[in-house]
């Protein structure tokens, strides 16, 4: 199962929460990431997330989206279901995985 953030959500990911502005991490989590994650778990497959093609991701967005998912589900499960692809920014995947692992501390 695939999810392209630039094609299906926005080329300009925004702030942390909905009340701060458009294309927030919270919006992404509720409208796309969580439903797709749940579908992937139901179907027993991985969710391949394509991070390329956007203007860039603020930590606030990433933490709200992926950290938020890891606060709803076990971080280990999130890490096993999500697979990331990113050619634009080499360290982005490691950064996201860090937020997933540290999510329960927040």
């Amino acid at each position, binding site marked *: 199962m695939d999810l392209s953030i630039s094609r299906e959500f926005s080329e300009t990911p925004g*702030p942390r929460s909905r009340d*701060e502005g458009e294309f927030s991490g919270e919006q992404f989590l509720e409208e796309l990431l969580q439903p797709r994650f749940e579908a992937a778990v139901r179907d027993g497959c991985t969710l391949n997330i394509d991070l390329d093609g956007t203007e860039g991701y603020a930590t606030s967005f990433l933490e709200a989206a992926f950290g938020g998912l890891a606060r709803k589900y076990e971080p280990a499960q999130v890490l096993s279901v999500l697979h990331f692809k990113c050619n634009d920014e080499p360290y982005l995947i490691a950064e996201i995985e860090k937020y997933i692992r540290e999510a329960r501390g927040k």
Partner: protein
Amino acid sequence: MRLTAAAASILGLAVGLVLWAADRGYCGITLDKHLKPVEVAGLAVTIFIAFFLQYFLVSKAGETRAEKDFLIETVRGAIKDLRACRDVVSSSYGSPGMSEPNKKAVLGYMRRISNELENIETAVEASSLRDLTPRCEALKLLYFSYKRSATGGNFPSKAYSTLQISDQAHAFRSLHQALQSLVFEINAHR
């Protein structure tokens, strides 16, 4: 190379001339024609060392210098973008939030720095200075800290708090210092 060959030719000619003069007894120069093996061996070793120094060590030093220059150039690029990013971030202090163009600029710089750090890591691993590779892992973690301090929290919609500004200054200094130290270490590497 031409100069070395010309110099070697002139030197060879001069030595040949002296030996000929010594053989004939001209100008008071004499030649002891008894061969002493130890002295011949010493001469051979001296010639070998001269060529070894000239062609091996000097060329190796040249290759290492080229690697260092390339790595330093790459690290300097990251330092330049880090400073530019810091300038954009700090230009928003006192404003209620970050403007869209500035937000785009900050995220663009963060992406560039990330790519530059990855280039540094790849280049160090491929070079003769690969024992510096652990420094690259440390740089990555410092980069994460800086990115988090600058684009975390309520970025870009709300103003930075005093605590966030302090965190940014600290994170910037740490990453900046680490990059500068890497330049000095690369330069001094043997």
